């Protein structure tokens, strides 16, 4: 006969009493809570009033903007195509939209762990990126040819982000492995390269790529300014990402690699089957975080003269009647960035939590 052992836990305070203790534990707490709630409510009210209640929406209503204290979204209504598409030909905007949707879908899909194998993820990104480029560039299937100089707005931001990722990710793996190489010559050289790039601001690297490299490279190798900047950005990204991956590699217990050695696996087998999968798992949050930072940093290309979403925002309020409404334009662009960056960073936090499970 066995009796069920009932483990008695000390009584846990319920949600309500926990709230009451944290929020109204002492007179000071009461005051802080009330002041904060009032402040939050006031902020929320002011924001909703500004953005929704007192705001003007249609572009025809622009004259009304002077009489209200709310937002004048007319500027977005009238100029959103400039902000989103830049100088892309008007009739072809559907292509730019579709291309962005494809690329965003690719990014979202790569967040699912089903795709996390070298084969699947490369195939996904090559297809997604290829389709994006095809839609943007055209020239086939009856679509007119639109050269990258005329790309702009959100599509250019996404293009730069995607190409930096697609070039930078494999490069970062190579750099991380080279820096951990047993051959001192290669390890030192890679270390120097990575540290040099990491110690410089991104802007100086983009500037060098845009303005200086034509001096350094022979004419046939220079390529378009956009591609040079993307190459510089990708190297910069890879140097940071390589350090994240290296940290992940270092966290692997040496027994893992030694087990591979005793099984008679060669270097590439050990790297691809034992080291890299574990390294990626170890440093996945840091890797996602680097993508978050990179997405924000794409805005810096506006300084070296590209018409990405920030520059196209400038253009959107730059003409005549819309100049007073710069705040609305900036809030609109900030909201777009916020949606991308916030969801990506939330995803990073979710991964961090999920990967911690089963590690003790």
């Amino acid at each position, binding site marked *: 006969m066995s009796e069920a052992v009932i483990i008695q836990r000390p009584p846990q305070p319920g949600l309500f009493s926990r709230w009451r203790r*944290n*929020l109204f534990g002492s007179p000071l*707490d009461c005051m*802080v*809570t009330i002041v*904060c*709630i009032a*402040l*939050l409510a006031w902020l929320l009210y002011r924001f909703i009033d500004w953005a929704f209640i007192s705001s003007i929406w249609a572009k025809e209503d622009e004259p009304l903007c002077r009489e209200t204290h709310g937002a004048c979204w007319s500027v977005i209504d009238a100029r959103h195509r400039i902000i989103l598409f830049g100088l892309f030909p008007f009739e072809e905007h559907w292509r730019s939209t579709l291309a962005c949707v494809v690329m965003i879908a690719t990014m979202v899909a790569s967040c699912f762990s089903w795709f996390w194998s070298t084969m699947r993820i490369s195939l996904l990104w090559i297809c997604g990126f290829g389709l994006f480029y095809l839609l943007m560039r055209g020239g086939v299937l009856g679509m007119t040819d639109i050269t990258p100089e005329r790309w702009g707005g959100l599509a250019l931001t996404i293009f730069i982000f995607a190409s930096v990722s697609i070039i930078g990710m494999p490069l970062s793996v190579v750099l991380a492995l080279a820096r951990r190489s047993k*051959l*001192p*010559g*290669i390890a030192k*050289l890679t270390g120097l390269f990575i540290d*040099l790039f990491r*110690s*410089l*601001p*991104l*802007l*100086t690297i983009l*500037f*060098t790529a845009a*303005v*200086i490299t*034509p*001096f*350094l*490279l*022979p004419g046939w190798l220079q390529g378009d300014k956009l591609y040079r900047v993307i190459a510089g950005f990708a190297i910069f990204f890879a140097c940071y990402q390589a350090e994240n991956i290296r940290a992940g590699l270092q966290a692997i217990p040496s027994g893992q690699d030694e087990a591979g050695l005793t099984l008679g696996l060669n270097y590439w087998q050990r790297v691809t089957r034992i080291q890299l999968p574990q390294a990626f798992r170890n440093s996945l949050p840091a890797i996602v975080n680097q993508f978050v930072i990179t997405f*924000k*940093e794409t*805005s*810096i290309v*506006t*300084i070296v003269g590209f018409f990405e979403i*920030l520059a196209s925002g*400038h253009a959107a309020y730059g003409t005549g009647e819309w100049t007073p409404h*710069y*705040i609305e334009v*900036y809030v609109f*662009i*900030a909201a777009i*960035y*916020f949606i991308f*960056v*916030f969801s990506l*960073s939330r995803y990073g936090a979710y991964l961090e939590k999920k990967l911690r499970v089963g590690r003790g």
Partner: protein
Amino acid sequence: MGSLLRNRKFREIFLQAFVISVVAGLLIAMVINAKASLAAQSLTTGFGFLERSTGWDFSFSVLPYSISDTYRKTLTIGILNTLLLGFLGIALATIVGVIIGLIRTSKNFVFSSLGTIYVEVFRNVPLILQAVFWYSIVSHLPRPRGAISLGDAVFLSGRGIYFPTFNIGVTAFLLMVLVLVAWLAFLLFIRDKIPTITRKKIKISGWIAMPVIWLLIAWTAYEPGTPLINVPALKGLNFRGGMRMPPELTALVIAIALYGGAYIGEVVRAGLMSVPRGQIEAGFITGLSSRHIFTRIRLPLAVRAVLPSLTNQYVQLMKATTIGLVVGFSDFFMIISTSINQSGQTLELIAILMIGFLIINLSIAYVMNTINRRIALKGYEVKG
């Protein structure tokens, strides 16, 4: 030959020699190519141009300057401008960050959610967008005539913010700062070289001597007959007197302080959370008040846990100052890029830029790491 290739040692040496010679070859090819393209534009290489006068103007300088200054002086001004921006931005970002970190670790979740909202809003929008946003706000402030006055001493206008200053000149002021910095550096280094009691005496006498030295400097630099405090006042269409903080600098400082504050706030929060519960509970048991638990236990331990990641944030923020170009602030990078346009000495200027940033960043890292080592507690380690 076949046996040589199968020899592992040989293969390794051969591979390394191959990689290194390819890299060296690429570098040499680039230099040759650069020489050829410079020769095609009939430009001379070398650093001789540093002594030429520039002949162009820029927006802001901490030192008095003219357009006939040499490139050497102009570049120095650029570095000083960057340092000023970086210093103001980082100092304010630290203050904001500490406040946000404290708010976010509050037990009262309504209170801490204010901090969370702040962090999420400011961290998830690119710095450069925040900079242009603040720039358009600051430069749309009213003209000097309608400037917003704070106690008739500080004026906010679209031309900049005007502060009252002491009438002692820039050199004297820089000297005062230098004395303070030297003293702080000294304090950092005398630790554990001198017995505690002597150290305390030195500390106290130093802090007493500091205002005296300052007064002495101020007194020597002060021109008799002028008012001691120089208050800005509206004369005609603009303000006279006082000190002007141009809108470019103001916007960048605000942007860096708020953006950096969000990041530093997270670092501070992580530091405060990393203090083991047992340490705090031990404080309760010994009967310390919650204020003492915070100032004597939690804060000192958190500061030690935080320093390495704080160093990293400072270096990142210093690098981020280069976006000053987007609002037209004449920082080091903008001076360099204008110099390149004007003089064509591309390679030399890029080298100066890279070395300049290396020195600035390495110095930050050096100072912070020294502090980190000096204040480290022996035999105790907080997990960061």
